[in-house]
């Protein structure tokens, strides 16, 4: 049949929810059982519209109805008639329809997105999640252990690991529930993986940054610690959200990125009186001596390096004095 066509009934996300093959032209659309395409939409007339095949392609004729319809947002009242190109969406009542004919070029078959595969075939090998969990727990234990003095009992040790683990599981479960709501998929493994990866990376940064900063005596490197925290938090949020709303990845990235930048700006704004906008005033890490890679300098050169503080300190001291005077004048 030359005029082979299908009408797609779209859901709220614009995806095809149901599909009807057009067996004959013209074709009536309405709520009445006698219509060729019966739609269960209370906002439709019994016979709401009729679809014709003409030389120029499909054409929609509006029949007598209360609500009429829209062609790509353009109003169609009763009696109106309009060509229905394949790209256009027609809304009748609350139902949105799209037309696809044999004349339209058929898009190539698209590769399957991993999220659309059966859940069993996961993004990572089966051992990855347990291995990550073990690494995560080990690092947690190591962190706790490094702060003990040998007097702690196994109860302390276990609870020190279980409490954060519990928090991580609750966090994951919440995200899995959200995914369940939006995608009908209790994506526990996917979210747990994301939470573990990001927190592990943050912990490693937390360990590595001070070591590098100390080795080369680059105290300023610690600025990345606070950056890493907000950046890591933002990435984690986005990564979770991308599972829930895979089609909105880019918008999510923008929104979460903007929030992270705003948070950072607030942090910096609070610290403008400090020497540094980020990071503490001095590097407090004191790893074992083997880590140090630079040679110490003589006392005199250290003392003369204090000189460069004088000008900025004087400037900072005068700043508030000026403000005081200004407010005094205002009164």
């Amino acid at each position: 049949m030359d005029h082979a066509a299908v009408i797609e009934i779209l859901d709220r996300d614009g995806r095809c929810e149901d599909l009807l093959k057009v067996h004959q032209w013209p074709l009536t659309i309405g709520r009445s059982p006698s219509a060729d395409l019966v739609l269960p939409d209370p906002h439709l007339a019994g016979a709401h519209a009729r679809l014709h095949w003409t030389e120029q392609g499909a054409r929609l004729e509006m029949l007598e109805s209360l609500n009429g319809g829209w062609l790509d947002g353009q109003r169609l009242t009763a009696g109106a008639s309009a060509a229905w190109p394949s790209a256009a969406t027609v809304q009748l009542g609350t139902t949105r329809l799209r037309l696809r004919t044999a004349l339209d070029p058929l898009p190539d078959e698209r590769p399957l997105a991993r999220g659309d595969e059966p859940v069993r075939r996961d993004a990572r090998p089966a051992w990855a999640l347990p291995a990550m969990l073990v690494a995560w727990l080990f690092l947690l234990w190591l962190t706790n252990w490094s702060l003990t003095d040998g007097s702690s009992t196994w109860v302390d040790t276990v609870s020190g690991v279980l409490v954060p683990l519990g928090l991580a599981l609750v966090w994951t479960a919440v995200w899995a529930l959200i995914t369940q709501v939006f995608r009908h998929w209790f994506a526990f493994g996917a979210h747990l993986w994301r939470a573990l990866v990001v927190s592990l990376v943050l912990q490693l940064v937390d360990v590595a940054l001070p070591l590098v900063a100390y080795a080369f005596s680059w105290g300023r490197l610690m600025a990345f610690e606070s950056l890493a925290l907000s950046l890591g938090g933002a990435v984690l949020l986005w990564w979770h959200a991308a599972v829930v709303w895979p089609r909105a990845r880019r918008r999510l990235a923008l929104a979460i990125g903007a929030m992270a930048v705003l948070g950072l700006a607030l942090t910096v704004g609070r610290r403008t009186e400090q020497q540094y906008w980020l990071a503490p005033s001095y590097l407090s890490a004191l790893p074992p001596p083997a880590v140090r890679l630079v040679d110490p300098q003589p006392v005199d050169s250290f003392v003369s390096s204090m000189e460069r503080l004088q000008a900025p300190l004087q400037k900072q001291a005068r700043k508030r004095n000026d403000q005081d005077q200004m407010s005094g004048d205002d009164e």
Partner: protein
Amino acid sequence: MFSLSTVFTAHRGAASASTAQKVLVPMALLLAALAFTGLSRAAPAAPASADKPRAAAVAATGMASAPAVASSQAAQAAPAAAGPVPLAPSAASAQLPERHPTQVSASARRLYERARAQLLQVRTLLNGSQASVGSGFVVTAEGHVITNYHVVSQHALEPERYRLQFSTPDGESGELQLIDVDVRRDLALLRLVGDPALLRRMTAAPLPFRPADQPLAKGERIYSMGNPHDVAFAVVEGTYNGLVERSFDPLIYYSGSINPGMSGGPVVDEDGEVVGVNVSTMFFSQQMSFLVPGGHAGALLARSRAAAPLKGPAWPRLREQMMAYQEELVRNFLAQPWRSLDHPRYRLPVPQEQYMRCWGSASPADAQGLQMQRTQCRMEQAVFISEELQTGYLSVTEEAYDGSQLGALRFSRQYSASFRNERLGGADRDRTAPYCTEDFVQQKDGPPLRAVACLRAYRKLEGLYDVSVLVTNVDAPTQGALGRFDARGVSFPNATRLTRHYLQGFAWTTPR
């Protein structure tokens, strides 16, 4: 010191202020309990040490800062929170006349009667209400009055907001002008303004100073006068106990009860000659009070007797005096060689105890994990600038850590945490936030060190800085020594000199 009197006086007016007082007292008691526990453990035989009088007063009145310090590290044994309190009040009604003459010794009665006309209460008024009260006394026929700087500091720093007024034991009153201050000794020179007849009566027989060539002997009876807590003028008998030991500036130790509101009042000998000026008491101790020696007041008078009243805020004057004071203090300190803490590996600089007091503490001998011993040395003298700002002192803390039971990894974590704990202060009204420089430092033949030098600039006292130097040894995986040197209110060149001096104090115990 006088901040306590502020609390007291405020109590009379606003209900909110009385809450403040109620809060203050239990906190102060709590602090005292802590201080004493710490002390008795650390040095059972020591007399209640306590910060210098003035500093101690700060601990009790400026509660906000005190607890922060106390909580900073567990074994805060050294400077206990004791302290002197200023003194001050008068009552308009004060018809003091002896209702119970038999309870007053003959001398006290005689001396009070003689000094009565020269005694006055100094009141600092804000919008007509008294913001703080102290005492003072007339020393010249021209109407010069001596009191404490801390009694008039609000007026000195913000003359357009705070006015000075005096009132006499008979309830008469008039204005006061600020002529000069000696902030280092906490003294102020004022001048009476008001009804000529009243002034004539008050200046008829100004109080004389006891000549410097007639020193008092320990145990002599002296008599302190003033108006405690704005209740009524009082005369308090006590004993001269010589000078406070290990004090940079001489301060008389007086065994007598001085109370807030009496600050700036005279202390006279049996002949009615001024030997000192009430300045502070030590909190949570019995009858431990401190007097500025009368000679300093005499010197201030001699220096500025002919001066015109100060115009505008006294910041420039304070700056000048603080500059001179820190110059003298730092020169003196730099001339002293360091002592060393008793440590098998490192020589750790500890100051001489000429005008600093050192207190030692350590983790329990059977403690598991990180072992620590600490020596904390501090000047107990501090210069009062305002209630929020006391400055002009030095302190040194040395802590030796041994983590051989912990291993390198755990030691490094816990030692880092201790290094991170150091408080450097933040930006406030008086000072900027700390600006630091840091690096590895090593002297020839000395151990490698990690050094951090942080400075805060004073906003109003331009050219003065607080400097904190943190130093730690970085040559051993399970051992470390953490030193901290603090100087408050020094010039920039002196801050660098002190930093160099301190860093040079670190060495190996046995040269290698």
